[in-house]
């Protein structure tokens, strides 16, 4: 089996513009120099002293807690870890004050995984380090990737035993993909490595455009253009996209649009997207805002040949299929013309066989999670599902091992009737509408604070029909069906039945007692159904907790405002008290 990604991509010759780098370093040096000169050092000293004081206070509080524990509590502490997770946060801090104590065994596992992640990151970046370092000096979003360990930590908060191991496996696979693609981006970018050889091999895909089409081009690499500088970035660091939003709003964009396309357009305005690639596959998916963001990208990069991949909205109507298939054929032809590569059915079918197998594993997870003993739940699983479905799409053979490993762990945990958040399962929930887990670390908080375990979210419930791997025409039709049912499109396009009636169908299957209803205030597609959801939830006897948010713009709805909605509901409607009172109200506005 060929190695993935092609090792020769890392070795493509760089043509770094040294003069440009020198100018940039000079500019950065100037900025740093001015910052040092203009800094209020007295204030900084005061802050350091305050930090010491706060650390002292925390240590003495933790010492007093330790002193008050009896033998059983000590035993529990050593085996199962700490219970008050809210004390890990401190006002105004970007990171938690320390790592979580999960009990002897799980802390060991966690630390091993922490080291493994560092090892992988260092090994990957060392394949061509200089362009990435250049990139870190050109693009401020690159700096946010230094906190990917923090992202890993917050998404595994409170997890124990096999659930912890599974989550680490999944997030490792995602970050390996991220690291490799960051290296490619920075190598090929004109401001970074400026590797023309590599750039010719790169096909840029529009936000959310599925990668499966690239499976037929094993000699090329498809990179979701805005994934690293915008989308994943915002999930790692919710505050990172605000400069993009501000820039494009200053340009004239109204503030009521979805922050995703808004940030993408803002990234064009502030020149935060790398300049590279043989061509760009723009798409009409998933929503009206995304359609429009393409015009900003194509205006910014006029020299980047663009193909608009557009699929029918009323996708259940098979009469529109022919146009969808012709559009895919047009896209394949376009990539061939722009790159000189040839579409390979063998490579495509091989990858789709893997993808089908991965879908089988996915369905097995759903089956387990539908039982009274759900195992693989939480943010890492949700993120992995989306990444695998959209961006990996069976292309990377290494992912099969991740699936196998996780499946084994999951079945073992199911046999043992384990709980992912040990002793914390009070409610079964599903998440509907535009999810905001990652920005606010929300599913994790729900489980740790209130014992609300999110079994699945709307965006995971996509196309599960096995894709055709023999008949070429049918394979193209299946690819169209798959793309039409991509993340954020399967439910929001093609009529209310796909999202409104679908919720009641899923409630029957998953049997939740709560539905976490994310209300993304700027999503026109979902918010235009608010009233019907409420009306029909009453008819179906389903409890909806509405949580307003604005994805990567916490200035519209802050994380603590989101949490307050649940706190209020749980106390007033459900008349419950939290499992971890330290998590009811804490300040994390400045944290990643």
């Amino acid at each position, binding site marked *: 089996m060929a190695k993935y990604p092609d090792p020769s991509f890392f070795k493509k010759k760089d043509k770094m513009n040294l003069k440009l780098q020198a100018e940039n370093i000079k500019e950065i040096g100037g900025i740093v120099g001015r910052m040092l000169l203009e800094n209020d050092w007295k204030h900084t000293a005061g802050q350091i002293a305050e930090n010491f004081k706060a650390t002292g206070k925390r240590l003495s509080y933790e010492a007093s807690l330790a002193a008050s524990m009896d033998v059983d509590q000590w035993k529990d502490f050593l085996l199962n870890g700490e219970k008050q997770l809210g004390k890990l946060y401190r006002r105004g801090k970007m990171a938690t004050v320390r790592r979580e104590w999960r009990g002897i065994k799980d802390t060991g596992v966690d630390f091993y995984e922490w080291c493994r992640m560092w090892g992988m990151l260092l090994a990957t970046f060392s394949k061509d380090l200089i362009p990435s370092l250049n990139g870190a000096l050109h693009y401020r979003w690159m700096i946010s990737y230094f906190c990917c360990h923090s992202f890993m930590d917050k998404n595994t908060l409170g997890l124990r035993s096999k659930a912890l191991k599974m989550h680490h496996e999944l997030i490792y696979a995602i970050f390996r993909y991220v690291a490799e693609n960051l290296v490619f981006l920075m190598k090929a970018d004109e401001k970074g490595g400026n590797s023309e050889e590599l750039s010719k091999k790169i096909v840029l895909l529009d936000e959310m455009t599925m990668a499966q089409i690239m499976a037929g081009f094993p000699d090329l690499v498809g990179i979701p253009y805005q994934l690293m500088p915008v989308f994943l970035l915002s999930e790692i660091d919710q505050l990172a996209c605000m400069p993009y939003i501000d820039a494009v709003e200053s340009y004239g964009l109204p503030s009521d649009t*979805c922050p995703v396309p808004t940030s993408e357009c803002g990234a064009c305005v502030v020149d935060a997207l790398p300049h590279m690639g043989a061509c760009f596959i723009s798409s*009409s998916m998933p929503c009206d805002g995304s359609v*429009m963001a393409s015009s900003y990208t194509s205006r910014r990069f006029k020299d980047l040949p663009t193909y608009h991949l*557009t699929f029918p909205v*009323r996708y259940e109507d098979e*009469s529109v299929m022919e*146009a969808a298939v012709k559009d895919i054929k047009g896209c394949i032809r376009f990539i061939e013309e722009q790159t000189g590569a040839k579409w390979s059915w063998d490579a495509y079918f091989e990858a789709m066989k893997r993808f089908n197998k991965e879908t089988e594993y996915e369905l097995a997870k759903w089956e387990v999670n539908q039982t009274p003993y759900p195992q693989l739940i939480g943010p890492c699983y949700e993120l992995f599902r989306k990444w695998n479905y959209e961006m990996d799409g069976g292309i990377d053979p290494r992912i099969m091992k991740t699936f196998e490993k996780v499946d084994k762990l999951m079945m073992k945990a199911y046999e043992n009737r384990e709980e992912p958040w040990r002793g914390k399962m009070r409610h079964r929930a599903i998440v509907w509408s535009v999810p905001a887990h990652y920005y606010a670390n929300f599913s994790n908080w729900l489980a740790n604070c209130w014992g609300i375990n999110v079994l699945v979210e709307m965006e995971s419930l996509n196309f599960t029909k096995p894709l055709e791997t023999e008949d070429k025409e049918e394979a193209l039709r299946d690819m169209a069906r798959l793309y039409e049912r991509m993340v954020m499109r399967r439910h929001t396009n093609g009529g209310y039945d796909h999202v409104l009636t679908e919720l009641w169908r899923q409630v029957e299957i998953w049997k939740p007692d709560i539905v976490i209803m994310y209300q993304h205030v700027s999503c026109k*597609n979902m918010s235009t159904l608010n009233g019907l959801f409420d009306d029909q939830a009453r008819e179906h006897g389903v409890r909806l907790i509405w949580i307003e948010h604005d994805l990567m713009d916490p200035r519209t709805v802050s994380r603590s405002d989101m949490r307050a909605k649940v706190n209020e509901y749980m106390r007033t409607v459900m008349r419950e008290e939290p499992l971890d009172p330290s998590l009811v109200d804490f300040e994390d506005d400045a944290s990643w």
Partner: protein
Amino acid sequence: MKDLKYMIEFEDLLQSADNDLVRQAQKDGNFAIGYTCYHMPEVLLNVDKCFSVRLRAPRSTSVDIATYYMSNYTCEFARSLLERGIEGGYAFLDGIAGVDACSAMNRCYEHMEILGINEKPNFFVTHCDIPYKIEDYTVDAMTTQMRLRLLNVMHEKCGVDTSDEAILAAVDEHNELCRIMSEIGDMRKQDNPPITGYEYHVLCLVSYCCPTSYILPKLRETVEEIRSRVPDEKKWYRARVAVVGSEVDDLDFTRLLEESGAFVVADRFCYGSKPGREEIKIDRNGDILRQIVEHYMRTSECARYMSEEKISQRRVTADSLARDYRADGIVFEQMKFCDFWAFERPLASHILQEEFGWPVLSIDRPYSVRSSGQLRTRFQAFVEALEIKKIQQRGGEV
């Protein structure tokens, strides 16, 4: 200028979707098909005994119930229509011809279905899939959609003839209407024209909101009247503007603009005449339906079309209309909370200003502007800016 004979009657017809002519047509055994979007070929709704009614919600005030259903950050046009529908304002319709072009309007139609705003037994709401770019296969796909999801449904529910002959008859009538509207519209190119932008907006809206065969005789008379109409000696406006952007069916918008000293010389917005009032040229030996579909796709200026040539077409059309109609500047407007035009407006405004050299006023606006003080101030300031520019061009001579 002397008042136009039918102006008050036309204004009255625009006070309600279910106007006198619509009622008369239905009394005569015709079927009213509501629609909103240019993506839906108007002429196809006028075959045989069907007639099109482009939906509006005039005199809208509160949209509270629609806001409960569709939330407050969504298109006010869609919400106003839903509110009017819930109030019973569209109970007269025999069907709604919808396109799945923008999410807000699509949801509006869906609510009308789910909430049962119309109790007629054969009432239908149809949703057609609309392409994002123009290729042979997308024209074919849309043609199929029009056949399966529109014409066949109209035939089934209303029992009307949807043959090529019936479609051609509708095209002939439509083309006559377009010739009249274009002739009147072109008079706005004159330095001292015999029609105001407001009057033209009224004529244009009645041509969309009334059954074609019932409004046509009155429009024939009106064009005759305007041909011989003598304008006042002194020009009544201070600056000529082209209005470009999203849906405007609010007469108060044009009234407010013209009260501020502007003359709306070109109406490149949905529910305006550009596009919408161009003749459809048909090769009678070719595929009639496909040609009609292609006409609407090619003339559409909707921001939803995302391919490069359509993006460029939108900018070139705005520029050439402004030139042809001798505008001094462009008002680029956008319905508040409309995603398509929200993204299009800032970028296109900058391009029209920086690359095409037009003074541009870029605004977002509510569905009903009423007597908005904010908009009035912006319009007045823009007119003043255009006047100053003209004075400067004349070397400071007032």
